[in-house]
């Protein structure tokens, strides 16, 4: 893949990755306006950016808590430019600054709050399903349509190979640039998306292909058409059928795991989550809107919902947390993709060794245990 990321790299001679391509900064505003459950999401990016019309927006806006990192990166790049321009050797200064940068990135990302994690999961440069496909799926053949109503671009399905395993891939696609985002409804799938995924998964089960599901959605699409065509029914059927699919199913939350829309592709033998992804019953904005009566408390809600990877692992909701490269997947997409590939390879090896009845029994028991710790018999 990397094509997309090379576009984003404004200075190819720099070894420091700069996430500031035009495609990166653009589109933050429409995304916020259209985000299904978060019509008034607080600033994910620096405030000023919201006041500028999308076309006139300066490039290179990072997340608020990333500003010191971006500043240091700029300094390094300026120094490199100066070095080239004037022929003076700033090698030792640059090395030192890079050391500082790495330390700063580590310190920042080691102590992200829940709300900051949500921002990282929504980072415009974070790799999405199609990026993972380009990076780790060989011979991907996309398959379209639910054969009932339409082809939903918010869900991508197709066959391919990951680490040598022939698989059926299903995943949400949020869209990279504004045009793609609108086509994909920002990753909010309609019933067609879930029905298409189910159809392809059943095809996979019929011919013994394992299913790999990449989850990245703010939630299922809340609209009239979506309700009319039975979004709830589509998700419900997926939950039931995925729990019984006679082939290994591995699910990975790569970005946002928003509610039923995420779960609709998320029932399987294993559920992993990327380090800076989130997964919960509702978006922080939605939760804030209901329990605080306004979306201003999204940060509090994010904290309260315990939606970060480490908390989910403690709660037994996810089986494994996939570590991201230093500073998050958006800084090193390839590193993130390799981590996902290794996880899928290792997990599929294990799951493929199990006879199907045993696999299904374990899958059922895995789901059956959910919530055990949150119960108590009144004494």
């Amino acid at each position: 893949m990397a094509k997309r990321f090379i576009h984003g790299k404004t200075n190819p001679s720099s070894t420091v990755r700069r996430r500031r391509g035009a495609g990166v900064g653009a589109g933050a505003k429409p995304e916020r306006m259209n985000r299904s459950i978060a019509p008034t999401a607080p600033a994910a990016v620096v405030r000023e950016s919201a006041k500028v019309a999308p076309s006139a927006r300066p490039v290179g806006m990072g997340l608020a808590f990333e500003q010191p990192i971006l500043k240091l990166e700029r300094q390094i790049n300026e120094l490199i430019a100066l070095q080239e321009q004037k022929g003076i050797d700033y090698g030792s200064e640059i090395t030192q600054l890079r050391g500082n940068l790495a330390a700063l990135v580590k310190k920042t990302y080691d102590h992200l709050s829940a709300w900051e994690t949500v921002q990282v999961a929504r980072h415009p440069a974070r790799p999405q399903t199609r990026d993972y496909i380009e990076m780790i799926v060989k011979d991907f053949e996309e398959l379209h349509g639910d054969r009932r109503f339409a082809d939903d671009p918010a869900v991508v399905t197709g066959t391919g190979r990951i680490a040598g395993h022939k698989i059926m891939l299903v995943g949400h696609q949020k869209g990279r640039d504004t045009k793609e985002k609108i086509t994909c409804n920002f990753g909010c799938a309609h019933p067609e998306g879930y029905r298409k995924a189910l159809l392809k998964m059943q095809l996979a089960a019929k011919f013994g292909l394992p299913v790999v599901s990449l989850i990245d959605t703010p939630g299922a699409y809340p609209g009239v058409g979506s309700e009319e065509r039975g979004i709830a029914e589509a998700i419900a059927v997926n939950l039931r059928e995925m729990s019984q699919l006679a082939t290994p199913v591995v699910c990975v939350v790569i970005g946002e795991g928003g509610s039923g829309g995420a779960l609709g592709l998320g029932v399987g033998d294993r559920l992993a989550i990327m380090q800076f992804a989130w997964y919960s019953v509702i978006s922080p904005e939605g939760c804030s809107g209901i329990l605080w009566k306004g979306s201003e408390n999204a940060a509090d809600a994010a904290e309260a919902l315990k939606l970060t990877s480490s908390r989910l692992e403690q709660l037994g909701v996810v089986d494994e947390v996939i570590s991201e490269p230093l500073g998050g997947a958006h800084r090193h997409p390839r590193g993130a993709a390799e981590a996902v590939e290794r996880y899928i390879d290792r997990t599929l090896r294990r799951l493929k060794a199990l006879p199907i009845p045993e696999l299904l029994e374990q899958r059922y028991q895995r789901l059956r245990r959910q919530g055990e710790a949150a119960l108590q018999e009144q004494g």
Partner: protein
Amino acid sequence: MIQNFTTTMTAPASRPARFVRPHRHVDVPEGLWLNCPGCNQIIYRKQMEERLHTCPLCRHHFRISARQRVNMLGDPGTFEEMDADLIATDILAFHARKSYHEQLQEARKTSQINDGVLTGRTFIKGRAVLLVAMDFQFLAGSMGAVVGEKITRGMERATRENLPLVIVSCSGGARMQEGAISLMQMAKTAAALGRFHRAGGLFISVLADPTTGGTTASFAMLGDFIFAEPKAMVGFAGPRTIANTIKMELPEGFQRAEFLLKKGFVDRIVPRDELRSTLARCIDYCGK
């Protein structure tokens, strides 16, 4: 997707908000009369209760508690409750404007049950069934670990004993205060239902006002038969969320039972006074 809580708790559309617990008036004995939100007429409470909590004038179906539902549907005195002692622990130590712990205690007090659902075996016109009734009074009938577990145990018992399963849903969706754990209850119940389905079990899903969010998107939409009470609000996303997204007024009757019937997601709309006989007939037709 529990956006629905607030909207459904306060208002089915433009109706007066306080019909569940009328305000105290100094000069009127409490609750003797009440205002029907369906026809906006003053009706005699006793008469309304005698008609299975429907308006004697316009047949508006009032929301009822799980206990009332169980008494109304089952043959008198036959309900054997399961897992009544199961209670929620506040595993996330969830705290919004109020703590979840406090909310739980209040809900237990006002609803007189331990969590948002009653499950157990009962008889409907002499036919043994596994009955599940959700209670909107308990945190909007939301599904957390307890509701998910009780329903799953009910499904598993119905599978073992080959009992028809009847679930009356009345719920705002998954319970936010339990985070991803409540979301997982959707998968758990759907998986248990998958096994029940494979074993040839009969599941009749009854949708009462309101059935939304994670409840609709899991077991409620998976019935062999799906019946809805008249005008029940049934949907996935809350109407306010949808209106905010599409920036338009929603069509009249959107997400009401009649709308779902028209769109093909409900088998029949069954008024409350016909529900018992309809259920009994279904069970007979399926040879259960």
